[in-house]
């Protein structure tokens, strides 16, 4: 486990909105299975600031990967995007809602790889075992940047050397199975960045790697981010990686964003009870060995169950009966540019609650030992 070691300078705390590379608004993705409909993404709105990194965190199954795939319109069947907008602001181009393009249309394909690149969790399976690394990267370049094979090869060589792979010329004729996991992930990054996209979707790119390799990969990503000037949407469940990599963080729970804030804000004063619980579940260096690591109570409800009210209320230590299990909170600004979706922070009517009340409530909740407490309303 990585302990949280954030960069000392509170690197750029931009607010959401403004100059974003991509704006996702009210996105809904449903999976229609024989057993019923799963709402994997249920009204997600988020923006990735230009040149910055947005972390999307949450437990497995919360819909964070599906959101990334939905941006590319690559949700695997039986998933369907039922609602929402994905607006891309590519450099030197007018903003365009990608969801107006058909899934397999030429327009959409011109965006994939060219304006938005993607890397995946499993470097072992993300590259086609039948073709050489060079071939697979050149394929993307030939598709978007040049029709000339020699030139494409030269570009491939260049990007391969940029991701810190030894002897890139030999890699041109190397097959994926001949590389280690870390090297494959570098090759994958090279592939995703070969056309210098505006946005990189990174779907848990370091989860399958060991810690040392993970750090190296993150370095490579940061370097290339600066070089190309792209933005990154970093999907992960590892808060340590978030602290290292991201400028902004969006926390997801059961297909919704429960909190979005700058990374400092989030780690300094997490607002949503779920975020707070996540923070407490991180092991701390020097916290002594006696204390048991806190876990979030309960488990994720079944994917077909429909909960009334806030999706987190059955597990929430601060749930207020009569409010949280009745009405569904929406994502609203709360103080310093952060947004949170919780009735502790604003009334059901939408007006923000006073920070004092919030603190008082939080304390009374902690005082009761984290058990579900009847709200002092």
């Amino acid at each position, binding site marked *: 486990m990585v302990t949280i070691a954030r960069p000392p300078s509170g690197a750029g705390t931009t607010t959401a909105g403004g100059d974003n590379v991509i704006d996702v608004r009210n996105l809904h993705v449903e999976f229609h299975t024989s057993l019923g409909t799963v709402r994997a993404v249920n009204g997600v709105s988020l923006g990735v600031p230009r040149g910055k990194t947005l972390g999307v965190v949450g437990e497995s199954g919360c819909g964070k990967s599906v959101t990334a*795939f939905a941006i*590319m319109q*690559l949700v*695997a069947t039986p998933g369907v995007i039922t609602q929402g907008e994905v607006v891309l602001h590519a450099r030197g181009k007018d903003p365009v809602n990608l969801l107006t393009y058909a899934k*397999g249309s030429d327009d959409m*394909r*011109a*965006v*994939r*790889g*060219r304006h938005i*690149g*993607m890397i*995946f969790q*499993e470097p072992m*399976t*993300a*590259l*086609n*075992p*039948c073709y050489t690394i060079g071939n*697979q990267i050149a*394929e*993307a370049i030939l*598709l*978007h940047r040049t029709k000339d094979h020699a030139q494409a090869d030269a570009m491939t060589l260049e990007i391969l050397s940029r991701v810190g792979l030894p002897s890139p010329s030999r890699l041109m004729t190397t*097959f994926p*199975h*001949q590389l280690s996991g870390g090297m494959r992930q570098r090759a*994958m990054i090279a*592939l*995703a960045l070969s056309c210098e996209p505006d946005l990189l979707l990174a779907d848990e790119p370091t989860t399958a790697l060991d810690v040392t390799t993970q750090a190296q990969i993150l370095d490579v990503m940061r370097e290339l981010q600066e070089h190309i000037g792209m933005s990154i949407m970093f999907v992960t469940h590892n808060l340590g990686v978030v602290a290292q990599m991201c400028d902004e963080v969006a926390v997801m729970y059961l297909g919704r964003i429960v909190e979005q804030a700058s990374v400092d804000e989030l780690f300094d004063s997490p607002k949503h009870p779920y975020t707070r619980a996540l923070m407490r579940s991180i092991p701390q260096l020097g916290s002594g060995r006696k204390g048991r690591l806190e876990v979030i109570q309960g488990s994720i409800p079944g994917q077909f169950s429909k909960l009334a009210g806030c999706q987190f209320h059955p597990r929430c230590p601060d749930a207020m009966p009569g409010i949280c299990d009745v009405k569904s909170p929406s994502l609203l600004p709360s103080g310093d540019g952060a947004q949170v979706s919780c009735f502790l922070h604003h009334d059901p009517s939408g007006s923000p609650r006073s920070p004092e009340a919030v603190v008082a409530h939080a304390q009374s909740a902690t005082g009761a030992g984290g058990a579900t407490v009847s709200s002092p309303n």
Partner: protein
Amino acid sequence: MITFLIRRLLFMVVTVIFISMISFVLIELPPGSALDAKLQQFRSRGLNVTSDVVKSLEERYGINDPIYKKYWKWISHAVYGDFGQSFYLDQPVSSLIGSRIWFSIGMSTAALLFAWLVAIPVGVYSATHRNSLPDYLITVMQFLGVAIPEFLLAIVLMFIASWYFGVEVGVLYSKQYRDAPWSFGKLLDLLSHLWLPVVVIGTHSTAWLTRVMRANLLDVMGAQYVQTARSKGLGERAVVWKHAVRNALHPLVMALGATLPALISGEVIVSIVLNLPTTGPLYVQALINKDMYLAITFLLFLSILLVVGNLLADLALAWLDPRVRLE
């Protein structure tokens, strides 16, 4: 690659030697021999077969030798192309087998090509149009194709061909070409007679391979690298044919080892039904008549055909999948 080839070739030789032993034992061991049948034949013609004659015949053919002696005698001649004598037909085995085995090879290969040429596109279509009406139809045809015994299909198609299309069945050439020298016309004529048995032999494997192809492709289409290919901006056609199909072919080539025995079995039985001059009818006749050297040699050659086919499949696999090359 060279060492791989040499190792496989050596292994092949060893396999063939073992197969020759097993074939020999299987066919030679049971009581009764072609000589008995032959003597029966003589007696029925009214010839007086004395015990002396029997004895000398038995000695000449080495009937009472122990089995390893017989095997050695046979195999040491076999390596020079002398596979012994057919008791029943009074001809050297090699001359009986010669042309027939080539027909068998040709028909099996043609059936294999037919199966692959049909199974791959149909399987791809079926997998990429999952749960559509054509997919259901293809699936039903697959099940039927596997469930209908080859000989039955042969009978039915033969019936249809001769009834509706007036195609002559059970012969390889039309009358005017039967004794004519080789020419382009004769070749065309041969092909026009061969397509029916080839289709019949290949149907079983086609159905099965289509199923394998569909399942594999569905599997592969869920693989991460297919999403990678899509995320590059490749069109669906390129994603399917360049990235998915090539990987889905892998198990198909491996399945070649299982397809070939079916094809060869099919060839044998279909030839019997259609009465084609290939190995099938003569092999079964030899078995029934206990014409052992003929039967053993047929079994050996059919097995060699299979072993060579498997070698080719392995080579194809190495060409197709770089991961295999290094092993």
